[in-house]
């Protein structure tokens, strides 16, 4: 187990290193530069001074080594578009907003997805099953941001029920978190339904029933416990989805989180911020993937890690 975790962490570090390299040279190869975006005419001296200030006058190889070295010490440099702000400070300030929304969306996806999946797997009424299946199919196909716009129109513009901007009161969380977790809810519903249905036909369930266990106990203690595995392994990719989804949902609802910051930094050509955020997103997803794999191994001893 420990060996597996160490190995995965090492692979994760290699991945991050490669990501950092690709990001660095990608950003270097980009057209346009961060200083001339305001159409201001700049003298050559000012330009050279600015380049020297941000260390952009050194050879690319040297810049790369300096960048890696600083990144290892948690220093991603100074934002180019927001003068005087450290990238790490921006991340620290913005990340909690995204994390709050992400956690709400995560639990929403787990709770609603599991409930719908269990109901759909166990119900004897065909129409209930059809409704849930239809929902899951549409949920996978409709992009979250388009669903968000439909919701914004109905609940925000027409009915004036929910606020369409910012994240202040719990009410503010309703639409962004639904939009963010829509596809995850549908995926979890599908996964739970199919795996629970398979489990409920197995011999040990019949055994538990014949021994007189209450049906609810059979479902939760025996069936669900074994059916949860695909859902747990899905949590890793789901985090990646939530992270990338936050870019569009935060932009749409003008939430001052890290996803909105990322899209802004791209349009602003803020090199250091783009690099810092890319590495940050990459690191989070790698860690989350690792966590979900380890949890899956703890829940299901049949999985042999490291093989």
């Amino acid at each position, binding site marked *: 187990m420990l060996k597996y975790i160490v190995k995965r962490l090492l*692979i*994760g570090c*290699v*991945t991050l290193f*490669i*990501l950092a390299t*690709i*990001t660095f040279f*990608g*950003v270097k*190869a*980009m*057209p346009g530069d961060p200083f001339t975006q305001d159409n201001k005419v700049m003298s050559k001296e000012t330009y050279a001074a600015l380049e020297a200030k941000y260390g952009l006058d050194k050879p690319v190889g040297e810049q790369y080594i300096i960048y890696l070295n600083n990144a290892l010490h948690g220093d991603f440099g100074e934002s180019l578009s927001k003068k005087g702000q450290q990238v790490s400070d921006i991340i620290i300030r913005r990340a909690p907003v995204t994390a709050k929304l992400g956690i709400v969306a995560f639990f929403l996806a787990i709770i609603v997805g599991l409930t719908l999946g269990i109901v759909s797997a166990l119900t004897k009424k065909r129409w209930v099953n059809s409704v849930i299946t239809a929902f899951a*199919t*549409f949920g*996978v*196909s*409709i*992009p979250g*941001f*388009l669903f968000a*716009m*439909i919701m*914004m*129109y109905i609940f925000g*513009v027409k009915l004036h029920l929910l606020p369409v901007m910012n994240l202040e009161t719990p009410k503010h969380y309703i639409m962004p978190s639904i939009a963010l977790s829509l596809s995850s809810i549908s995926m979890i519903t599908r996964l739970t339904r199919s795996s629970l249905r398979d489990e409920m036909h197995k011999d040990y369930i019949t055994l538990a029933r014949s021994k007189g266990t209450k049906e609810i106990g059979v479902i939760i203690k025996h069936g669900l416990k074994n059916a949860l595995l695909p859902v747990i392994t899905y949590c890793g990719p789901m985090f*990646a989805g939530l*992270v*990338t989804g936050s*870019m*569009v949902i935060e*932009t*749409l609802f003008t939430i001052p989180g890290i996803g909105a910051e990322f*899209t802004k930094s*791209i*349009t602003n050509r803020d090199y250091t911020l*783009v690099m810092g955020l*890319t590495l940050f*997103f*990459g690191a989070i*997803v*790698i860690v989350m*993937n690792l966590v979900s794999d380890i949890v899956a191994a703890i829940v299901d001893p049949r999985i042999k890690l490291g093989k």
Partner: protein
Amino acid sequence: MEEKELILTDEMFEKLDDSEKNSEFIAMQSKTFLKDAWGRFKKNKLALFGLVFLTFMIICAIFVPMLSPYTYEGQDMMTRNVLPNAQHWFGTDKLGRDIMVRVFYGARISLAIGFSTAFINLIIGILYGGIAGYVGGAVDMIMMRIIDVIYAVPSLLYVVLILMVFGNSITSMMLAICATSWISMARQVRAQIMSLKEMEFSLAAKVIGASDMRILLKHLVINAIGPIIVCLTMMVPSAIFTESFLSFVGIGLDPTIPSWGILANDCRPLLFTYPIQIIWPITAICLTILSLNFVGDGLGEAFDNNRR
């Protein structure tokens, strides 16, 4: 029933027609693999709906911009934000451009991106996954580790980077989407090849002296064609999704290209004033992705050998 007396005549001892020879032989009519799959696909109503809708979309994408009197960029300041009427079936946008032409022109772009990336992925995926699965051993290990490393990071990050470096054209969008999405195809192909290469026909081909490349492409890949096609169908909607997602946020295609994501983004500020405009791109994106998913699911069931 009354029993008849048996009278033997010469007619009875005549030779039978060839057609009657096998009349007692009971067997299913032999069908080719694709015919068989099509038979099962036809029974799936949702999949059939998806196919019909896609065909409709492709026909509209080709002909509506050709036959319409408007162009996708032609502005008319006299008719801005018009509601749907006889001249403009879908209405016009804030610059007086005909939305119907723009939506179906967007269909050209989105479908082109979807299908061409799927096709490029098919080639890369078959080669990469095929070689990894067929050669196996250390080669397989290294190739799979490379995939793991790429796969560990959300693909959108790579897509964004590539778009930033190569600009916001349609070609760089295709390139960017391909850069990461071939992985699922490669994995699928590898898994299929690994199980197929253990089968007897593969050994037989080897004994006859077929070259490795021939075995791989002519025998193994052909036998894995079902899962490959399903994987291929599922790649189209995800490419369309990625494009519209990025364009919608403003970091995808150039804003002058009327793709569906750009159209939705254009209408975003008008959500409070002219919400009707946003309906068209949303409907187009959702129905297309839904249809493609239906077709993909239908193909998955049709090609599933266990269901025969």
